[in-house]
């Protein structure tokens, strides 16, 4: 099978990493990237920094200069609209109506995900999601005017945005239907600490409530009615209620879709020959089931991209889902979560040290399988290492880790076993 041309659809974290990894592993064929944005996008972890004025959009997008040096051809402003079922070609269309049909020997789908809009908002109504460079720049203008902002959603993006903007003079309100912040990532205690960090920085946090109605006010503003009966007026509303991949265009393409995204195995291969998927759009099904798990983080996207590059070149790599974790920094406080959420319920060690330090470690057969930690300068790398390697922990080491007194464990003196996360 010839491998003269690799086509990558999407140029986010995963798409960019696939190009880089292919070149790093010696692939010298033709790489074509199809990207719907007409300018290099701002990486999502950097969007909040752009809004806060800590980073210029051009500075945040400088990773994309790599593409030129890698010899990658990019079709900016082209959106993939069709993947032919019986032919190896993908059709992309630009905003002006032009259309191209690109043939491929290997295809990588890294189309990312789109923000979710709750039904209470009118379709077509301009709502910001903090998903693109343009939205980040628009929000930055609002910050300069010290306007009022309502963030709908209580996830990491909402928390980071509120934490950055309130000290800069904006009136920020965070509304979440969950009983605590970052509910998918943290437990109640850690979520309570997150709410306290935000409140101390001047954010109005309203938990356990939802919107009942939204009335437009000006170009971007709105009057929001809550189910509690309260009314809020805002110059701008940011909806941060999660993301879903837009993969409807792949329905008749021979690529099997899962509950939300594109189903892949651990080699990131889809059901169609020579088609891979990675990043936010990939739903990894380890056992070949009808549904899998979507890892919506930058580090997962980069790791998956490495696997894709290795798999395309026949190097036999596979993705390790346990390598993931999530870290959110609010001010100086870090909120860290590792492992599956259901495993966090088996509490073994719980530590609360001082008003801002908390740890909840879950063990199975003396091995760390999940962790929720809050504090400053946390040993994130160590925790990930312990989970990945399945290191046996003594009681003393475990207590020291929970209390924040443990920096390293000498792996060599412990029995090493397979990770059973």
């Amino acid at each position, binding site marked *: 099978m010839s491998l003269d041309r690799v086509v990558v659809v999407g140029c986010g974290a995963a798409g960019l990493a696939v190009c880089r990894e292919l070149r790093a592993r010696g692939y010298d064929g033709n790489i074509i990237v199809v990207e719907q944005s007409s300018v290099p996008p701002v990486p999502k972890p*950097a969007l909040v*920094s752009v809004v806060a004025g800590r980073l210029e959009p051009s500075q945040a997008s400088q990773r994309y200069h790599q593409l030129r040096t890698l010899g990658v051809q990019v079709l900016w402003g082209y959106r993939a609209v069709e993947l032919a079922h019986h032919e190896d070609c993908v059709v992309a269309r630009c905003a002006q109506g032009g259309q191209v049909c690109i043939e491929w020997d290997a295809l990588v789908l890294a189309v990312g995900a789109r923000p979710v809009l709750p039904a209470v908002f009118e379709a077509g109504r301009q709502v910001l999601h903090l998903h693109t460079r343009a939205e980040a720049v628009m929000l930055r203008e609002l910050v300069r005017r010290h306007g009022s902002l309502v963030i709908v959603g209580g996830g990491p993006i909402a928390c980071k945005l509120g934490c950055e903007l309130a000290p800069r003079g904006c009136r920020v309100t965070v509304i979440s239907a969950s009983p605590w912040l970052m509910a998918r990532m943290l437990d109640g205690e850690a979520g309570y600490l997150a709410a306290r960090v935000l409140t101390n920085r001047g954010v109005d946090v309203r938990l356990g409530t939802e919107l009942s109605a939204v009335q437009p006010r000006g170009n971007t503003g709105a009057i929001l009615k809550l189910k509690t009966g309260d009314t809020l007026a805002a110059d701008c509303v940011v909806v941060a209620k999660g993301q879903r991949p837009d993969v409807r265009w792949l329905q008749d393409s021979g690529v099997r879709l899962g509950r939300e995204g594109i189903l892949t195995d651990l080699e990131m291969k889809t059901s169609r020959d020579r088609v891979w998927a990675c990043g936010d759009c990939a739903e990894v099904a380890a056992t070949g089931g009808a549904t899998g798990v979507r890892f919506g983080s930058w*580090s997962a996207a980069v790791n998956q991209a490495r696997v894709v590059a290795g798999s395309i070149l026949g190097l036999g790599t596979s993705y390790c889902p346990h390598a993931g974790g999530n*870290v959110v920094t609010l001010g*100086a406080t870090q909120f860290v979560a590792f492992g599956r959420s259901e495993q966090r319920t088996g509490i073994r060690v719980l530590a609360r040290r001082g008003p801002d330090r908390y740890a909840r470690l879950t063990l199975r057969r003396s091995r760390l399988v999940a962790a929720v930690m809050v504090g400053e*300068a946390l040993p994130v*790398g160590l925790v990930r290492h312990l989970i990945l390697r399945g290191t046996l922990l003594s009681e003393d080491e475990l207590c020291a880790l929970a209390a924040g007194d443990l920096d390293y464990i000498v792996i060599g003196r412990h029995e090493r076993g397979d990770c059973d996360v």
Partner: protein
Amino acid sequence: MAQVLAVDPRRCTGCRTCELVCSHAKTGQFRPTQSAIRRVTVLDDLGFQPWCCLQCTDAECVQVCPVQAIRRTPEGWLEVDPDSCIGCSLCSLVCPFGNIRVIEGYATKCDLCGGDPLCVRWCPRNALAVDEAANLAEAKAAASAAAYRKLIADQRGGCGVKRVQ
């Protein structure tokens, strides 16, 4: 060739001077928890091994940083550009040795203090030094070979290695 911080664990007494000096250089405070160099206790206080960034050749932190805030200097070590760092913690998440921490919203790691590390200067037992990674590997190999020779010599009653004619 990449330069790294070389540690001689036989000389280290675990006094933690390196941590204090480093934290003061990085944050202006004497807080060992915020130091880029960490003391490791080996075998329950029988010995010590300070530990810090190994300046990896193919560093994961460089690859994963979304804003390219971690760069390799012409001299060969990796440093974090504080103006670019967005404090996303991805580097600390992927570092296989756990040698990067996010402190006050910015990634902090050993950058060899620009080539003249304060921990080396202040170490009371000269347990730390800056050297090229290749030299370190050679020195370690030589030390292993010497230890092996000594082991054989001890097993043969101090006669040394017998030469075969």
